[in-house]
């Protein structure tokens, strides 16, 4: 599966005001950051989603935060993701930004190779990024350059792997007592 597949089809009933607003935001985004910055632009269930690169993510988020028209002052959440079947783009970070003044949400994605999981930190823009990035480091092993305190947060410190990566199954694959002949699990 690729991230392109993961991006959802259009919402069953696309509401016009949301679509119009998203188109406006998208126009502004391309004006601010140039053509070709965003790929895979779509709006699953009305939430504008775009993929960019890790080289530009910090600049883009900082620009969105400072932009007087959009005012993306709020970082709702960020999380890591792992697509092992995507060579060169195995790992990803997904950011949800929220502009409370305009009530616009925006989802930004970046993908990068698992061998080189280095991403710029957003802690200098949002205080809240601190623990979110520690969580992504803890579970996916994503390294945030510039993070003041990048240590594990929920798991024990001496854990030597990053458990949310797809290579670690929830259950022990060698167990046979749980295999179900009829339903295959």
């Amino acid at each position, binding site marked *: 599966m690729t991230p392109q597949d993961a991006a959802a089809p259009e919402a069953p009933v696309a509401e016009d005001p949301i679509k119009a607003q998203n188109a406006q935001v998208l126009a502004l985004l391309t004006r601010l950051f140039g053509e070709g910055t965003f790929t895979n632009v779509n709006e699953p269930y009305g939430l504008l989603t775009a993929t960019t690169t890790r080289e530009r993510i910090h600049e883009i988020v900082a620009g969105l935060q400072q932009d007087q028209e959009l005012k993306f002052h709020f970082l709702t959440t960020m*999380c890591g993701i792992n697509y092992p079947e995507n060579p060169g783009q195995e790992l990803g970070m997904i950011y949800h930004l929220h502009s409370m003044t305009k009530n616009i949400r925006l*989802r930004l994605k970046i993908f990068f190779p698992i061998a080189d999981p280095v991403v710029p930190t957003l802690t200098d823009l949002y205080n809240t990024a601190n623990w979110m990035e520690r969580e992504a480091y803890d579970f996916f092993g994503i390294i945030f350059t510039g993070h003041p305190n990048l240590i594990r947060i929920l798991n024990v410190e001496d854990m030597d792997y990053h458990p949310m990566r797809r290579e670690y199954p929830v259950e022990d694959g060698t167990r046979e007592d749980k295999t179900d002949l009829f339903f295959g699990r």
Partner: protein
Amino acid sequence: MAVNDTLEGTHKIHEEAAAQRPGQLMPILNDFSQELTTLNLGPTHPATHGIFQNILQMDGERIVSGVPTIGYIHRAFEKLAERKPFYQITTLTDRMNYCSSPINNLGWHMTVEKLLGVTVPKRAQYIRVIMMELARIADHLICNSILGVDTGAFTGFLYVFQEREKIYEIYEEVCGARLTTNMGRVGGMERDLSPAALDKLRAWLKSFPAVMKEFENMFNRNRIFMDRVVNVGPISAEKALSYGFTGPNLRAAGVDYDVRAMNPYSSYEDFEFDIPVGTNGDTYDRFIVRNEEIWQSLRIINQALDKLPDGPYHADAPHYYLPTKPEVYKNMEALIYHFKIVMGEIDAPVGEVYHSVEGGNGELGFYLISDGGRTPYRLHFRRPCFIYYQAYPEMAVGTTLSDAIVILSSMNVIAGELDA
């Protein structure tokens, strides 16, 4: 040396250390010219209401720095969710914020419904609103009354705990459980509001306002209480936004952000309610905002009950809505669907959806990525208190230990949600 001089020196060290390592919240103080005491607050401490640890550096009575350690009850919900069919994930959600589990359950169902494109009938939406507001009242009652306990006033706690008990009895009538409710189903509610549930709800709506009034009389203008909470742990609106505060804590700082009003779900747009906001974001404001929200929740429940429409209590979505047991025993189709749903044989559509609800302590978000299988490809919970708890050291530094306890209490940090 006067106490104030010592304090000034400590703050200076703190500021210098912070300037050296920008972004670092908890400077490590290696200056031994000051006699600092290390105090281990937690992981199990009667005043922390959950299992989380803070290693505090104390200069006498004052807190110089704090390092929170969390994750003591981490149960890997996000990883487990990658293995479970959608209906089984419900039981994970009510173990997050266990003070308001129906909100978590119903928020999760709404997320799945959004992914599936299922529209829930009005009656089910109104029942959900009633249950979610009851849960919000129960959550706020606990938070505020425990805040009273932490300042030394036990009476209020005992008094409103009876009312919470009655709310739990209403839960029992609606879903059969009290704490981990597993309420509702994907596509609606699992049963209609029974006459017994309605009776209990109506009786409670009659008796509760008087109790709440008395609780407010006991605290709101109480001199001893106000001395303990006014101007304790204030946070500015800009700081609160930067720290990702949501819910009553953000509103106490003066930002009128409420998911129910900004992105209405489950027919919240049909009801009239106010969003109380504070001014300084201190402990007192958080307390007052929560109290006022209880009144607003009551208003919503009363409106929903008055306007409760007739009709089905679940959507006509046999592929996703778990049929009732009597149906399963009588009806072949229901049996087939029951079997398929329980065995996880029904695939969800490909898609990604973010849905958020106004939880007891903030914006509770579910980010669900489905690759078309029986389970989510990835499920991320936006847990409000995990996000805002990181501001705690900053709010506690400079205060005394007793104030730190009060601040922690007023932030409504729920360990189960913090660690997920």
